[in-house]
């Protein structure tokens, strides 16, 4: 019993010490989940900017990936703590509006990044555009196919905004290439293994597949594995611009990957938040141009996110 109390006291002390550490300004950063490398890049970017600017970051991630109620609860809890500013990626751009309104009511300045929230007041929005990236990446593929042939779409999670927009981008790109036939559009839930198995199954129905539009990189990799396993070839594109994708582009297995640059969004999001706190001018909106990583430009993406330095607002070309 004595040891239990001592241990408990020690635990309390440690926690209190950790929580009591005061920094100049604290910024709470909200991302969607622990598993998608994109959000990891956002968090790394946020931390990098924070170090340069001399502020402290608290990361908030739902323990259940993409959980709407959990992010809502986290926002409510964070408001009690009163951080100086918030950088916010809503798990769902519509469902989290009440949370943003609570942040507004509490008078905490908030910057919206990645997915544009459907409501609430923000200092600024920094984002890339799922639709635009889907469109650009698909166009890359269709051009590489010479404008003719058969393609397959591997969809992500039904119900996720990113998925809806990217697939819409794919489909719109296809409209511009009438000689390309869309054979099938099947879901693989953004998961690698599932994409592999779905691709295997689809290859049975379709002896000729020339291109694969995958809504994210893990699915693209799954498709590539399936193709290699069956000794078939096709041009494959993904979205995320992950490290793995860059390596596959380098080795020629993946044609291209749409780049969101979560790292930059994390950097700029924090920078804008800090500028707002320090009463410096901030842009109302910053849409990063959709970039597609392929064999022509992958070199600049080879540095792992942890080693990159944050570009500043001026460098990214804010108005």
């Amino acid at each position, binding site marked *: 019993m004595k040891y239990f109390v001592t241990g408990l006291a020690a635990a309390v002390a440690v926690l209190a010490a950790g929580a009591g550490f005061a920094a100049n300004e604290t910024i709470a950063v909200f991302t969607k989940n622990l598993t998608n490398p994109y959000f990891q890049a956002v968090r790394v970017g946020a931390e990098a900017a924070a170090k340069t600017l001399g502020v402290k970051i608290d990361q908030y991630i739902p323990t259940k990936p993409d959980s709407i109620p959990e992010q809502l609860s986290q926002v409510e809890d964070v408001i009690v703590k009163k951080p100086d500013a918030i950088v916010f990626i809503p798990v769902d751009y519509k469902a989290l509006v009440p949370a943003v309104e609570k942040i507004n009511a509490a008078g905490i300045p908030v910057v919206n990044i990645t997915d544009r929230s459907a409501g609430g007041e923000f200092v600024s929005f920094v984002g890339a555009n799922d639709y635009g990236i889907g469109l650009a990446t698909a166009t890359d593929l269709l051009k590489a196919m010479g404008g003719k042939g058969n393609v397959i779409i591997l969809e992500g999670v039904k119900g996720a905004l990113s998925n809806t927009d990217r697939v819409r981008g794919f489909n719109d790109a296809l409209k511009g290439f009438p000689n390309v036939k869309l054979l099938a559009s099947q879901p693989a839930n953004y998961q690698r293994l599932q994409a592999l198995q779905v691709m295997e199954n689809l290859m049975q129905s379709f002896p000729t597949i020339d291109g694969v539009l995958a809504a994210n990189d893990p699915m693209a990799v799954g498709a590539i*594995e399936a193709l290699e396993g069956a000794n078939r070839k096709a041009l494959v594109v993904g979205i995320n611009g992950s490290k793995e994708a860059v390596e596959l582009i380098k080795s020629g297995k993946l044609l291209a990957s749409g780049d969101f640059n979560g790292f930059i969004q994390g950097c700029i999001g924090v920078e804008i938040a800090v500028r707002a706190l320090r009463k410096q001018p901030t842009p109302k909106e910053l849409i990063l141009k959709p970039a597609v990583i392929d064999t022509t430009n992958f070199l600049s993406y080879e540095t792992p996110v942890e080693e990159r330095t944050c570009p500043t607002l001026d460098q990214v070309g804010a108005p």
Partner: protein
Amino acid sequence: MNKQTTGRADIAAPPRFGFSSNVMQVLYRLLAAALLCMVLASLSDAFMTENNILNVLRQTALLFLMASGLTLVILTAGLDLSVGANIALSACLAASVIKATGSASLGVATGIGCGTFVGLANGLLVTALRIPSFIATYGVMWMLTGLTYFYMGGQTIHGFPPAFRQLGSGYLLGIPMPVYVMVLFLAIGTFFAQRTIWGQQVYAIGANPVAARLSGVPVQSRLVLVYTLSGAMAGLASLIILARINSAEGDIGENLTLPAIAAVLVGGTSLFGGSGSVMGTLIGALILTLVLNGMNLLQVNASWQPLVTGVIVLVAVWISTLTRPSDE
């Protein structure tokens, strides 16, 4: 779930019990699977092709390996919810070992070792700490998930030596490697369950743990054994998945646990313990794989897929309850 006070009419005292009723259940399920095949073959030309059949077999093998150890746990009227998280952690650890040392065999040892260790922990929580298996494995699942996320830090490990990858993607005599592993473990599992004293004891524990204990079965150590085996099988499955998809990420275990449990239950093993078979689990895995295969071949819309799967699972199990010897 355990019925501690009620006995079961279909369990007799003699050692070799449950054999013939299990065989009948397996046959009924084979019939169901065959029916499903016929339906799919008539709806899609691509179904009965050599490649598709091999694919289905390989996909079934992966699901079966995850579910095989789980079958033993469920036979004891327990449940292991940590299977998916166990696979994720084992795969990630094995992946980094392979990357760090370049040795596939060290990776294999790590994967199986990790899985076994987790299984052992589950077994001890259930027996020594007497925590109900549902909750113990649920808690372990969260802890493993947290550990895996922390360890991987949002990164992916990819690219393994070709020799290792053969385990998942290779062929031997035209048949995918995982199928051989599946057959091997089907044989081992069935032998263990039906022909060894230990297996018989597992059935007895599930049917009536009090009676089993009274008749001299070392219930606690057998339970630890089953959970450890379940963990070890998860470790093995993680290696084959790793070899198949050639990468490891923190979330690969996310959608694996419920399908594994569903495979066991569709295969006829009862959550109340004491009846079921490893062969049944294989057919359960086959049925679930056929459903997904069918939905892809027939291009069922994404929104319909959960619904179709749910309905088919219900129908499959309903048919099996119609044919099970009544015990109420």
